[in-house]
Every structure is written in structure tokens, then in C-alpha cells.
């Protein structure tokens, strides 16, 4: 799984985070280090689609939170991914 938007949504599903915290979290749970350009490309797209929004903060490190529609989208995507994973595992076992 290397889709940056899915990784960011998964990270925010665990709680509000700013950019650097997301980078570290994603590296921890997915083993993928997103570059700053890739991370903020994903944040920009996700915010435009209304799947995440910024949390009021006076810090320069702007935290983000996942929205309701963002959570639904993540659930759909992970369910699809789960189906693919289960089918792949089954086929590997039967091969």
C-alpha cells in the first residue's frame, strides 16, 4: 500500500496530527517514508475533497483531522483493499 492519500487518512484515523507527525507515524505503521512534497500533495488533495480539515492552532505546525466523509472514504478503500488481500492470500494458499 503506497497511495499517499490512503496513508495520510490512515494516520489521521488514529488522531489529529501535523505534517511531521504524520510522516513519522506513516513510517512507523507502513514502513513508507513520504517525502515532504508527496505528503503535502496528498494533504492538498484531501483537503480539497473535504476528507480532512485543519484544526485551529496558533502553532506553525498545522494539525489536521479526518472528516466524516474522509472516514467513510477510508473505510471503503480499506474494505476494497481487504477483499484484494483476502483473495490474494486464498489463491496463494491454494496454489
Amino acid at each position, binding site marked *: 500500500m503506497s497511495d499517499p492519500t490512503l496513508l495520510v487518512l490512515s494516520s489521521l484515523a488514529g488522531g489529529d496530527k*501535523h*505534517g*511531521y507527525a504524520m*510522516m513519522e507515524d506513516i513510517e512507523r505503521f507502513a514502513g513508507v517514508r513520504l*517525502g*515532504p*512534497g*508527496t*505528503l*503535502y*500533495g496528498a*494533504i*492538498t*488533495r484531501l483537503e480539497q475533497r473535504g476528507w480532512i480539515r485543519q484544526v485551529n492552532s496558533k*502553532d*506553525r*505546525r*498545522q494539525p489536521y483531522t479526518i472528516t466524516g466523509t474522509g472516514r467513510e472514504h477510508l473505510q471503503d478503500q480499506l474494505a476494497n483493499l481487504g477483499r484484494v488481500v483476502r483473495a490474494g492470500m486464498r489463491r496463494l494458499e491454494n496454489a
Partner: protein
Amino acid sequence: MKRAIRFLARLYPSSWRRRYGAEFDALLEDAAPSARDAFDVFSGALKMQATTWTFGRIVLAGVVTGILMAAAFSVALPAHYLSHSFVTLMPADGSSPANESTLQLVSTMEQSVFSREFLTAVIHEHNLYWRERLRMPLDDVVESMRRDISVVPVPSSENGNAFTFVVQFDYSDPRVAQRVNEELTSRFVEGGLNSQLTSHWTFRVPDAPSLPLKPTTNRARLIALRLLAALLVGLTLATALRVRHGKTAS
């Protein structure tokens, strides 16, 4: 590295910088950026720029890129100069040799010009194709030289039984092209003189090989082709970005 990345971050569109600039700079301060991150920021800036550009602006950028690439390509490619000379074969004493023996004679003359031994000697004597010789075997260089030589029949201004040939050599240096063509022309005639069929023919070389003053390529045509290529690059790039942007947005 941080300073370089901060500079690259300025390549993002100003509207994006207004919205995300401060927090993006804070992220760059927290992270220990690598060269890979620098490329990532540069690539991200280009992608973000592309999403804010209009179709016309992308076409324009593509056309400018195409023109710059074409200009760089033409600077990298050396100009070519074509030296030519004429050789006329006339039947001796007004005789009319059989067609078969004429073809045999011309074939012998051509073989002597295109022979590997002769061309190898010419290459070494004039230090031709030195760049190619650094990276190619000599046989390939000889083959390349053969492509730059042509011996073609042309309509003769002499009597009906005469044949005229133009011997041409194409090279990046006009003086070298002329000097080498002198040797090629001499060799072409010698090939005929050494043939047993020579008693039927006399050979005439009216003028010394020409010194080419202008490159062989047609500049106007080249410029038109470059502009067309640049336009195609621009349109392709714009269409690809529009399709990609459309997919990302959906």
C-alpha cells in the same frame, strides 16, 4: 540541504504558498531532509504548478520546452558540408562499348572507392570520424563513411554515349570534405584506369572537387520542423497533464 529545499519550496504556486507555506516550512525545519526529499519537493512543486496552469499556459510551456530542446539538439549536432565533383566517361575514338562492359567498368570503379582498405587509409590519413572511432569499431566507422559517400549518375552534357557521375562526400568540416573528395574522385578514376576495360574509355574530371560554403541542411525546413515538433510536444504535454489532472480530481 535545508537551504536548497527551502529554495525549491518557493517554486510552488503563490496561492499554494499562501495557504500551506508556513506549515510546509515548519515541516522542512523538523525533518532531516535528504537529496531524495529535495527531488520530492521539486517534483511536488512542478505537479502543483501544473494543476494551477491553464491549458494555454501548459501548451506555451511545452512549446518553449520543445524549442529549447530542439535548439540544444541542433547545437549538439555538427553542421554537414557536401563536396562534389563530376567525372565523365567518354567512349574512346567514338566507339560505343557494350552496355554490359560499361556496367562492369562502373561497378569496378565504385568498388575501388568503397573498398575497406582504401577508406581505412583515408580515415587515418585525414583523422576522420575521431569521435566515432573512440566508441565504435573501425569496421563500423568505415560503414558510416560509406553512408557519407555517394557516386551517382547524372545526365551528361557530352555526346550520347558519355556517362557522367557525381562523386560526393558529406563531412562536418568543409575543407576536409573537399580534400577527401579529391581522393575519392582520384580513386574512382584510378579504379577505371586500372580496369582491363579501360581501352574503350577516356575519363574526364572537368573541375576540382568543390569547397562547400554552406551546410547541406536546409535551415528554413529545419526551423519549421523544430517548431512543429515543439508544438506537438506542447500539445502532448498539455493533454497528458489535463487527463492526469482530470483523473486526480475525479
